[in-house]
């Protein structure tokens, strides 16, 4: 800002010198700055540190569901708050629903910081977010007896280890799905039988996998079957050598991958344009592509699959707990479970949803595995947060933070 030149009076305003004012201003501002910058040392997002007991384990649970507060704020996956079931919910309970969509579990964890910030009531967290939320004290236990449909849930979804700790339920399981192998039926005349196609140079530049550090578990699952001497039993609990071997495999895969997809719609685009012919996906992508007459199909290879199970979790500082309970009750009823399953392409937790699904869309019960025996469910390795403490009592497993760092170096 060069000084203004004047050529004759009146042509330009001469700026007034006001050093005293400047002095005052600067002094005030500087003090404010200094004060504000030093205070953080005193306060922080401070909460009791986690240790091995969830901070909110002792929080009181509701004994009954009162009158609705009139509104409900959700953090949810896209498609979890469709007008199809939100409108009747609002009509029945008077709770107006506001939804904040999040693209990943980690975003959900981030949004739920500080107990939901006093803003959010419920979050539809997937298994890999649940433990982080629980141990950060951002979610609190719910009274499962207030959710009548829970009795009709698949047994393994009633109290799974990713949302039930010490007998306390930090939310209610909702629906779940496997991560499948999506392939183009033009390229593969028969379904591939192994995840090895994702690591096969033959399909270089035509492969896509999710951009999510939890993908390391998929590679670990593959290695657990193809390289048994590594001794991987749980793909989420990896010792350092096991972890290193998995990361090495993924780095080998990197040059073959066309794109690491972040959004479901990206993978849909990739397959529909023929850019990729094989990849890891959710059933949601398969359904959307098939509905659009794109020649694809999905399968679960012989090594098995990882999966995700979503839980509606209650925020510690939920401003509308009654509406929150009403939502949990609503979303677990057979009718809504069926509607959501078909809409999103996932499997309902409520056993009674199957016949309703077939009524809504013939064959959907089988298409989304809602009628499969329990053994199918047991074969899926559901997402959970990798912690340093392995279930076997030792403390040498690689924690999620390192998974994130490693993932950044894998995708380069």
């Amino acid at each position, binding site marked *: 800002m060069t000084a203004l030149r004047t050529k004759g009076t009146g042509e330009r305003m001469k700026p007034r010198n006001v050093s005293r004012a400047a002095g*005052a201003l600067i002094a005030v501002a500087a003090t*404010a700055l200094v004060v504000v910058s030093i205070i953080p040392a005193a306060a922080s997002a401070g*909460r009791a540190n*986690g240790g091995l007991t969830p901070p909110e384990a002792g929080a009181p649970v509701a004994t009954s569901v009162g009158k609705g507060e009139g509104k409900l704020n959700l953090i949810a996956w896209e498609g979890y708050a469709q007008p199809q079931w939100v409108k009747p919910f609002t009509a029945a309970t008077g709770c107006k629903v506001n939804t904040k969509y999040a693209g990943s579990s980690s975003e959900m964890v*981030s949004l739920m*910081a500080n107990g939901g910030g006093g803003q959010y009531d419920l979050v539809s967290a997937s298994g890999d977010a649940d433990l982080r939320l629980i141990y950060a004290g951002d979610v609190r236990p719910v009274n499962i007896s207030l959710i009548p449909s829970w009795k009709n849930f698949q047994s393994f979804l009633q109290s799974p280890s990713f949302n039930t700790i010490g007998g306390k339920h930090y939310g209610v399981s909702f629906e779940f799905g496997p991560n499948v192998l999506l392939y183009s039926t033009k390229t593969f005349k028969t379904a591939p039988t192994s995840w090895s196609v994702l690591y096969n140079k033959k399909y270089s530049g035509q492969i896509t996998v999710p951009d999510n550090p939890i993908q390391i578990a998929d590679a670990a699952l593959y290695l657990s079957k193809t390289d048994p001497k590594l001794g991987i039993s749980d793909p989420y609990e990896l010792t350092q050598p096991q972890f290193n071997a998995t990361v090495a495999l993924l780095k080998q895969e990197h040059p073959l991958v*066309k794109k690491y997809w972040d959004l479901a719609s990206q993978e849909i685009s990739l397959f529909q*344009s023929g850019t990729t012919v094989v990849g890891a996906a959710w059933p949601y992508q398969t359904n959307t592509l098939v509905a659009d007459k794109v020649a694809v199909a999905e399968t679960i290879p012989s090594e098995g699959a990882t999966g995700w199970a979503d839980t509606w979790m209650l925020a510690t500082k939920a401003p509308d707990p009654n509406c929150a309970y009403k939502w949990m009750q609503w979303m677990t009823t057979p009718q809504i479970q069926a509607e959501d399953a078909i809409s999103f392409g996932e499997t309902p937790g409520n056993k009674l949803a199957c016949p309703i699904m077939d009524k809504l869309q013939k064959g959907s019960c089988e298409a989304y595995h809602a009628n499969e025996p329990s053994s199918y469910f047991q074969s899926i390795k559901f997402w959970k947060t990798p912690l340093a403490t392995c279930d076997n009592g030792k403390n040498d497993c690689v924690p*999620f933070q390192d998974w994130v760092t490693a993932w950044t170096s894998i995708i*380069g």
Partner: protein
Amino acid sequence: MSTTAIREDRSGKGMARVSAALWRRAWLRATLTLTPPLAWFLVIYIASLLLMLVTAFWTVNPFTNVLEHSWTLANFNQLFSSPYPTIILRTVEMAAIVTVTDAVIALPFAYYMARVASPRARRLLFTAVLLPLWASYLARVYAWIVILQKGGTLSWTTSKLGLGAVNIGYTNTAMWVVFSYIWLPFMIVPLYGALERIPDSLLEASGDLGARAWRTFRTVVLPLALPGIIAGSIFTFSLTLGDFITPLLVGGASAQFIGNVIYSNIGTANNLPFAATLALVPIAIMVIYLLGARALGAFESL
């Protein structure tokens, strides 16, 4: 405004007194005028920036996600180890290439707008340049996916023209095209401003002195347009430096930019200290860039 109107103004002796008092005390006027905006900036913006940057020297407990106020340089060690230097370099390279591309595309366009077009054409062109900014950034980037993907509009067009299929979807080339497209209006507007201010007399004088059109352009127009180019480059450079949406939507498998890594450290890892450390890089780059731009007179053209 007639003088009688002024004399008849009844807004009162009170106002006149206050006005006179302020006139005599320039420092008071200055304080009243400057404190609101500067206070806003210092207290809201600068303070929160500093608050965030201070955490670069702290760590976060990986188990509980609670910030630990122990001063350490661990984050910086991590910053300088692979793959972060590659990512930073990749981002800066793309920002530079995009800036040069936009400058090259914008210059003839802005020159036409400023010096050749009729006033009506100028208005139309100006509207045409600003209009795309109103069609959501996200929607425009998403449209490019359709254009650039395998079998997309571009490929279809080149095939029809007999040039064979062109498949540049999800590559660095795709990102370069989309970035250049999105920031182009931000380069055109300041450049137009700078070019439009060049007086005809200078160009005529140059001609009178015997310079041909190209020489005049090179030695008279370009140097005078430079502040405009630099002003525009502030936007193209910094916007590319921090963007994570375009690499996410349009980039390929090695498309992590500084913005993506910051975003994933905030979103995925809840690792605010490391995200803050990463954030220091574009801040440092841009502050240096801004100081240089100011020295070159670009702030007049913003």
